[in-house]
C-alpha cells in the first residue's frame, strides 16, 4: 500500500464573516495515482475543501500535509507545480485562442517576468493532443462549446504538469456524451499515475470512475473509503438526506431515486 500523497487531519475552516464553520474535523488520505470523488449535496463544503487543498485558504485548526509536509511549508511555486486546478466554470473576458489559453498553464514553470519559450509551447501542444483538441488550437476560447471548454480547462491544468489534479464539479454542466468523455479522460490520467481529486454532487460521476469516495454533509465527512465499501444505499441516503437505492448493473453501481417510501402526501 502506497503512503499518502495528500493527507488531511482534523481540518476545520470557517469563512471570516460566517457564523458556522464551513468544514469541521475533515480527515482523510489521498494515495498517488488514485481517483478520489468528494461527493455531497450542494453546500456541503466540497468546493471549500478543494480550495483548502489548493492552499488558497488556510484551515483554522488541523492541517493538510502534502508529501508529509504542511502545505504552508511548500513555496507557492512548488504548490503551483504540484497541484493543478480545473475550475468549475470560467468566464473568459477576452478572446484568447485555445493554444494561448492552454499555454497559460505553463506559468508556474516560468520566471516571474518571463514569457513562454519553445519548450512551453511543446508542453501545451502535448496537453492539447492528449485531449484530442489539436484541431481547435486557433479557435477563440469564447466560441467553444461547454464540453470543449471543459476539456480546454483540463488541458491547461495538464500543461501545468502537476502531480495532483483538482477538479471542481467537472461534469455538472455537461451533456451525457461530454460527461462520459471527461470522466474517461480523468480515469485515463489516473492510470498514468496522475492523482485525481474532484468534487461532484452527482453520484453517477463518482461511481463511474472513482477508486475512493469521500461522502460529505454539512461540512463533515460522513464516510470515506473505497467505492465498493462506501457506495451503498444507506450511506448515500444519509449524505443526501433523502431515501435512495443503489443497484448493481454489469458491475457498475447505479443510483435510484426511491420514490415509494417518502413521497409527500398531497
Amino acid at each position, binding site marked *: 500500500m502506497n503512503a499518502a500523497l495528500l493527507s488531511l487531519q482534523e481540518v476545520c475552516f470557517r469563512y471570516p464573516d460566517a457564523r458556522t464553520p464551513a468544514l469541521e474535523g475533515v480527515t482523510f488520505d489521498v494515495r498517488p495515482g488514485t481517483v478520489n470523488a468528494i461527493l455531497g449535496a450542494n453546500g456541503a463544503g466540497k468546493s471549500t475543501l478543494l480550495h483548502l487543498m489548493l492552499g488558497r485558504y488556510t484551515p483554522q485548526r488541523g492541517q493538510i500535509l502534502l508529501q508529509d509536509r504542511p502545505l504552508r511549508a511548500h513555496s507557492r511555486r512548488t504548490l503551483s507545480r504540484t497541484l493543478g486546478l480545473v475550475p468549475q466554470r470560467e468566464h473568459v473576458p477576452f478572446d484568447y*485562442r485555445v493554444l494561448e489559453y492552454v499555454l497559460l498553464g505553463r506559468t*508556474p514553470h516560468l520566471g516571474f517576468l518571463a514569457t513562454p519559450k519553445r519548450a512551453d509551447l511543446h508542453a501545451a501542444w502535448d496537453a492539447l493532443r492528449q485531449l484530442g483538441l489539436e484541431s481547435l488550437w486557433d479557435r477563440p476560447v469564447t466560441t467553444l462549446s461547454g464540453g470543449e471548454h471543459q476539456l480546454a480547462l483540463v488541458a491547461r491544468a495538464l500543461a501545468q504538469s502537476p502531480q495532483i489534479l483538482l477538479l471542481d464539479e467537472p461534469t455538472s454542466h455537461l451533456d451525457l456524451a461530454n460527461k462520459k468523455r471527461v470522466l474517461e479522460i480523468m480515469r485515463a490520467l489516473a492510470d498514468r499515475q496522475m492523482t485525481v481529486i474532484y468534487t461532484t454532487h452527482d453520484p453517477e460521476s463518482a461511481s463511474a470512475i472513482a477508486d475512493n469516495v469521500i461522502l460529505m454533509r454539512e461540512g463533515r465527512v460522513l464516510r470515506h473509503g473505497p467505492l465498493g465499501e462506501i457506495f451503498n444505499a444507506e450511506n448515500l441516503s444519509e449524505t443526501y438526506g433523502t431515501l435512495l437505492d443503489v443497484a448493481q448493473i454489469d458491475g457498475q453501481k447505479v443510483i435510484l431515486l426511491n420514490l415509494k417510501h417518502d413521497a409527500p402526501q398531497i
Partner: protein
Amino acid sequence: MLLILAVLLGLGASLFIGRYPAPFWMPPSSLRTDALAHQLVFNLRLPRILAAFLLGASLAASGLVMQMLFRNPLVEPGFLGVSQGAAFGAALCILFIGVSPLWIQASAAFFALLGLLFSYTLAEHLRYGGWVLRMVLAGIAVSALFASGVGLLEYLADPLTQLPEITFWLLGGLWGTRWQNLLSILPVVLPALAALFLARWRLNVLSLADETAFSLGTAPARERTLLLVLSVAATASVISIAGMVGWVGLIVPHVSRRLFSANTQHALPAAMLLGGLFTLLCDDLARTLMAGEIPLGIITSLIGALIFAILMTTQRLGMSR
C-alpha cells in the same frame, strides 16, 4: 515591426508638420536656412511630439492593463477617480493659484493619485462583492464625487478669465508642453511603462478568475494592486500635462487586441505603439487644421468614437457577455 517603422516615420514627419512657415508642411531644408524654424522645431515641436507619443502610449497601455486586471473590456485608465481627480486638481489650481502650467500639472497629478487612494480605501471598506466589483464601485463613487467638485469650481470660476482655462484643460491638449513639462514626468512614466511591458505575460494570468490565477502560482490581489498602481501613476503623469484626452485608453486596446491577439504578450507592446501613433497624428491635426488650436481631446474623442462605432457594428468586440 511594421508598426515600429510606422511610428518612427510618424515621429519624423510630425517634426515638419505644422503651420509655420506655411500651413501643413515645412521643407526640411528650412531647418538650416531659417533660424526661427530651427528654434520652433527643437524647442516647441519636438517636446510636444514626444509628449504626444508618450501620452498615447501611456493611456493605451494603462487602458489595456486595467481592462485585463478588472476583467472588463469597457474599463478605461481614467476610472478609479484618476481622471476626475486630475480635473478637480487642475480646476482648483486655476481658481486659487493661477494658470502657471507647472502648478496645474502638480496639482492635477496630486489629486489624480488622491482619487486612486480614495477609491482604493473605499474599496477596502466595501462589504460587498469581490475585489473587481468593489474597485469598480468605489471608482464610480469617487469619480462622481470629484466630478461634482469640478462642477462647483466651474460655477465659482470667473467666466471671463478662469472658466475658459478650466474648459480648455478639461478638453485636453498639449499646446503648453515644453521640455520642462516633458522631463518632469519622464521619471515616473518611463519606469512604469517598462514595468508593465515586462509583466505582459503575467497580465494574461491575472485576467483569469482569482482561483485560477492563484492555482497558477500568482498572488492575485497583491500583483493586481501593484500593476494597477503602476498604470495609474503613468496615467496621472500624462494627464497632468495633457488634461483630459478621452477615448485613447479605451479604443486603442480594442484595436490592438483585434489586430494582434488577445494575448497581452503581443497586445501590450502593440497598444503602446498604436496609442502613441494615434495620439501623435491626432495632435498633428489639432495644431495644423486651423489657425487656432483645436483641443486634442476633441479630436481623439471624435475619431476614437467613430472607430469604436465601426468596430461595434462590423465585428465582435473581442469580448463575450
